[in-house]
């Protein structure tokens, strides 16, 4: 519950000076959004270690009571995407020498999630511990989260008459019991490392700096979308892995901060301004007679 400490209506009642403080760039962390999320639970994905066994997919399906994942032949025949009944997919890319490079995709669990900031009813929310959670009983189905997510992660149950949004939960209920997420607990090759974000960024840097000839010098998720709790390192380009390379390096909720600074200013300044204009335009008292001359006789009594 870190989002939205700034209460719309409280600010509405504040003075013009206080309203101006809400304008962009003045108070970067005033609303309680953490800068980095060092202590949040995270996963480091080292794609160079992934053998493409898809054990994580099976564990995910079991933990979330989803249909069984498809066979290898089917799974790698096309480029899959996550869906309402599939929270994670292992995708196959190719190294320059033609050998496969596998990568697991799921919700990135942003440190400052665009989806949760976009949710007007807070069905999507960011937990202190890291996961971006979802409460279907609050969701009204506006699907703005799907517009907002830079990774296009949230999926909707269009086929249902009582639809909800579906995405990776980061096994938040397992994590609450002190257990690791299902996918990380079954990974046999060490491709998935579960830990805190601060420690995993240090670990990723160590691996990349320690093997500069092997790794691509980039930790995907360290800065993307203002930082994500799922971090990736690889030995090919992230574009080839199919990652969203155009994603901004800064937080998405902050993009709308300027626009959200408008309402307090409007609510504070418009009424006096408009009343002033009214007084100005009616200063000679001619407003009293209006309506008689232009046929709206029934309007003024």
């Amino acid at each position, binding site marked *: 519950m870190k*989002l*939205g400490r*700034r*209460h*719309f209506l409280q600010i509405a009642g504040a003075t013009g000076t206080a309203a101006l403080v809400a304008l962009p760039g003045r108070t970067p962390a005033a609303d309680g959004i953490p800068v980095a999320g060092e202590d949040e639970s995270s996963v480091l994905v080292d794609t160079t270690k992934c053998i493409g066994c898809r054990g994580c997919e099976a564990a995910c399906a079991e933990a979330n009571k989803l249909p069984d994942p498809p066979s290898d032949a089917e799974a790698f025949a096309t480029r899959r*995407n996550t869906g309402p009944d599939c929270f994670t997919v292992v995708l196959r890319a190719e190294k320059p020498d033609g050998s496969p490079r596998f990568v697991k995709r799921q919700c990135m669990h942003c440190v400052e999630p665009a989806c949760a*900031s*976009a*949710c*007007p*009813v*807070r*069905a999507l929310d960011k937990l202190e511990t890291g996961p971006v959670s979802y409460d279907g*009983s609050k*969701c*009204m*189905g*506006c*699907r*703005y989260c*799907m*517009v907002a997510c*830079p990774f296009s992660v949230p999926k*909707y*149950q*269009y*086929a*249902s*008459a009582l*639809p909800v949004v579906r995405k990776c939960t980061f096994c938040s209920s397992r994590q609450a019991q002190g257990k690791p997420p299902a996918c990380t607990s079954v990974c046999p090759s060490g491709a998935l490392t579960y830990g805190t974000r601060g420690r995993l960024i240090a670990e990723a840097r160590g691996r990349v700096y320690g093997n500069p000839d092997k790794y691509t010098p980039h930790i995907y998720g360290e800065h993307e979308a203002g930082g994500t709790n799922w971090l990736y390192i690889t030995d090919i380009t992230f574009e080839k892995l199919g990652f*969203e390379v*155009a994603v*901004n390096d800064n937080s*998405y*909720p902050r*993009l*709308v901060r*300027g*626009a*959200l600074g*408008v*309402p307090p200013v*409007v609510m504070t300044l*418009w*009424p006096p301004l*408009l009343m002033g*204009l*009214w007084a100005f*335009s009616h200063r000679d008292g001619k407003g009293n007679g*209006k*309506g*008689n001359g*232009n*046929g*709206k*006789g*029934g*309007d*003024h*009594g």
Partner: protein
Amino acid sequence: MASSGAPARPGGSWVQERILLGMTMREYLVSLWTPFNVVCAAILAVGVPLIVYRFAAGLGATTNLSQTQPWGLWIGFDMMTGIALAAGGFTIGAAVEIFNLEEFHAIERPAILTGFLGYLMAVIGLIADLGKPWNMVGIFSNNGTQSVLFEVAWCVACYTTVLFLEFAVPLFEWLGWERFYRPLKKLLLALTVLSVMFSTMHQSALGSLFIIAPHKLHPLWYSGQIFIFFFISAVIAGISMVIVESTISHQIFSDQLEGHHVDIEKVTFGLAKAGAVVMFAYFFLKLQGVIDNHALGLIGVGFYGKWWLLEMLGFVLLPSLMYAWGARYRHITVVRVAAILGVVGIVLNRLNVSLVAYNYNQPVRYWPSWMEIAVSLMLVVVGVLAFRWIVLRMPVLSPMKEQAGSHGGTP
């Protein structure tokens, strides 16, 4: 008013006079048999059951929405476009009540009625589009204050209420509820201030919705300042729509205006002058937005570059110049054509932002299903029919007939 309205309830006389337009039930039903009404009835006969079907079968069975295209025609047209075209309510309300521009007084009530019905239809379209619309009440209790949609939802809810209260003045007058409509009329200034305030916020916020999706919207339409463009173009929409609507109203409902002369051409030229200035400024602001977004090189390049030029030159710059020329040389047809171009331009802009230029880089493009189109069309028809029903009965275009005389002297 008091003598003719409230007490005269007994028998069919009130109903016959106020609902059936002075005809008997039989005459009234016969009078409904017109080609226009038959077409409207057909559209309703298809559209209304489709809304029921949508809730029984789900969005997947009725729409072409997908995981990459979460918003379709019901948001892009009913909501985005409908709200913009309904901006005449606050534009004209402000001109009359706040700026004291008396020449627009005669079109204030029709503009407010258009606004109210526009918002009502937009909200119905939104309800059809939401997965679980009953959870909308969560807007008021869950404090989603970081969401632009939170702002839009609050403002649309508040403003629709304000529009209803403004519309309640002629409604109560028609019902003969003098006790309610007189105090309400005194509140009109306060309601107008609120309407300008809420409109400023949500007309602009409808654009701000896309600020959080910088890579999904084409750079020619994306802008961090899109809320300014949306607000200014809403004013353009309001002005243009009022010209179109008053032109049609004054031809179709000319018998309503008998013995009640409104120089509609003078009003139209006044609106055209305002429209010319606002549109001209809007054109260059949009151009500045493109430069600011480092997208100047994309103008004219490929489909989107040419499409942007069409929108901006054909439906902003051209009608702006036509408004100016028409107002300067008193050429009413030029102004009316410009108004139609202006309305089309706003429809085009809202559809471009929410549908055409959204997901421009995706391989699979969205096209609405026939059911989405049928429901949207049905909502437009309901709006038009409601407008006609109300205008023929309530004192919107002209004062209540039997009271026109009794009120002239009261102030």
